[in-house]
């Protein structure tokens, strides 16, 4: 065991199923399209989700992520394509017969029923015997630490408590697949972080496959085993969180997840183990060392994350992958500082640096002339 508790240890102990070639997907989304009149909300999306995954669909509003979730739940019928859950085709199967439960963004607790009755609702519809209903309801309420509020009505609960009732209600039926629509959206920051870990703990304990819809990239990064980034009804990239961040496939993904500095440029030299790119914004060439398929004179973008740029008043080697500039803005954020640096070409770069020392005196400040440099393997070349 690592000395530092790492949430993802359990998941990374063996090779996760989405990295295995022959693993059988648990949820298969096959060429799903959903049109509302002329508007295409989801455009021929295919996606495999594996057992025990905590899969995040990440995208802005109108990206189609909620529509996709609603098709999994059965509230919307796809215009074309099909969904298989555990090998069973879900086409034409109404929501009440699917092995799927959903936690709604608004929680959708029944206002006229007590917490207990809300949680018991699904079990009673299944025809579970009342003694068992009672036992399972009290078990799950203890699990989300709400046993003492069982008799309350939803309007007598706080936002965080309601969220946990909604979670308990959707988990109590032991669905094969749990759908969560912006599960933490209505909570304040502190509660959100706690709940994130809570969700991951529950997911591991119960071994239920989760699909989470969110617009919050931080939430997706923390929670997910894999992230599907959606835009305009398409899934643009499906990958593990670190991969989405470090190796974005397109400009959209690079800009949507975290902050990024982008250089537009032209390929001038394409060698076997490195590519040189000339950008009008930089005097030095950008040199990228991982193989990418591109041709000389091809127009590309190069993305560099703000924390991967070194910044110093002392001269650095800036023959390639470097620049000089002037600090024109500093934002002190406690754990780190954000600098906005203006290059000679007039382009602004964003650079973050951890505040290792408590001293203010030696820190970089406004109007400082600085040297910037970064490593060849920090750059990502984007062709789309």
């Amino acid at each position: 065991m690592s000395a530092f508790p790492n949430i993802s240890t359990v998941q990374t102990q063996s090779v996760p199923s989405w990295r295995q070639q022959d693993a059988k997907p648990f949820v298969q989304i096959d060429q799903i399209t959903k049109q509302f009149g002329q508007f295409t909300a989801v455009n021929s999306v295919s996606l495999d989700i594996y057992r025990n995954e905590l899969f995040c669909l990440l995208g802005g509003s109108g990206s189609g992520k909620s529509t996709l979730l609603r098709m999994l739940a059965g509230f919307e019928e796809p215009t074309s394509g099909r969904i298989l859950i555990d090998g069973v085709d879900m086409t034409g199967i109404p929501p009440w017969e699917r092995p799927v439960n959903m936690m709604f963004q608004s929680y959708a607790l029944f206002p006229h029923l007590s917490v207990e009755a809300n949680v018991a609702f699904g079990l009673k519809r299944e025809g579970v015997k009342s003694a068992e209903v009672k036992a399972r309801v009290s078990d799950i309420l203890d699990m989300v630490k709400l046993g003492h509020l069982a008799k309350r009505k939803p309007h007598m609960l706080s936002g965080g408590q309601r969220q946990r009732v909604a979670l308990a209600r959707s988990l109590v039926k032991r669905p094969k697949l749990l759908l969560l629509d912006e599960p933490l959206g209505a909570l304040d920051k502190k509660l959100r972080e706690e709940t994130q870990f809570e969700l991951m703990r529950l997911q591991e304990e119960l071994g239920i496959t989760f699909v989470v819809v969110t617009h919050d990239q931080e939430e997706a990064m923390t929670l997910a085993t894999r992230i599907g980034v959606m835009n305009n009804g398409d899934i643009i990239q499906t990958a593990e969180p670190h991969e989405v961040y470090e190796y974005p496939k397109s400009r959209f993904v690079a800009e949507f997840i975290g902050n990024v500095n982008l250089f537009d440029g032209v390929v001038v030299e394409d060698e076997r183990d490195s590519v040189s790119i000339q950008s009008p914004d930089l005097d030095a060439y950008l040199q990228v060392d991982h193989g990418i398929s591109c041709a000389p004179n091809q127009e590309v973008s190069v993305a560099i994350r703000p924390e991967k740029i070194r910044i110093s008043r002392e001269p650095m080697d800036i023959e390639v992958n470097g620049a000089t500039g002037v600090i024109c803005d500093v934002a002190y954020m406690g754990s780190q500082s954000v600098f906005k640096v203006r290059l000679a070409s007039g382009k602004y770069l964003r650079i973050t640096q951890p505040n290792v020392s408590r001293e203010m005196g030696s820190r970089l400040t406004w109007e400082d002339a600085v040297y910037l440099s970064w490593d060849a393997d920090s750059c990502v070349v984007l062709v789309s």
Partner: protein
Amino acid sequence: MKQGSSTALKMMSGAGFVFLYAPIIALIVYSFNDSKLVTVWGGWSLKWYVELFSNEQIMSAAWASLKIAFISATLASVLGTLAGFVLSRMRKFVGKAMLSGWVTAPLVMPEVITGLSLLLLFVFLENVFGWPAGRGLLTVVIAHTTFCLAYVAVVVQSRLASLDETLEEAAMDLGAKPASLFFLITLPLISPAIIAGWLLAFTLSLDDLVIASFVSGPGNSTLPMVIFSKVRLGVTPEVNALATLMIVAVSMAVIAAIVIMHRQSRYNDKNNH
């Protein structure tokens, strides 16, 4: 300036209330009048209430009116709820706009026209099918159900429109088939609107004179019809007593409806925050 305008407002609303309620207060006061002449004050007395309860014609008309109001309010609540449900929940279908217009038309239709057209319909049906045989309680109930239905449908529809649809989706998601969804979730949530609609329908039916005059038969006069015919022969203090009782009954029903609606909306507000 502000002080002045608020005084003016108070005076205006005061005048309005006097205009609306002075006649009713006069009527209530005169129902306790000891004198045989309606316009002459002869001291306090309950004798007209005693007279009223021993007047068989009035009592039987009152009983008939209560029966009619109860049955037609109940029928209107069931049918109006169904109509309101269809109008707000069904996906767009051909004729939805027309149906919604038809359902609400009786709200603005002059009663004389409603009454006359229903009378013609009943006569026609009797001639062709032999049903309804003659006019009486049944025809009044049908007529009242018809126009009360519109009020219930409107009240229920507006409640459904403000109801969070994800509640119904959540119930389906948890395994509720459409029937149990309706009876376990939707119906309890809209029940205050249905009760308010029932009370509204009850008072409307109890009040109605015009439509009942058209469609009721001989020997089946409703209370408003009896009062109206009595007043034509000259107002007796007995009628004042009766009117007072009706005002008390109707205002209690209306207040109950308002309280129920108000409570429900407060309850919803709490739930949304």
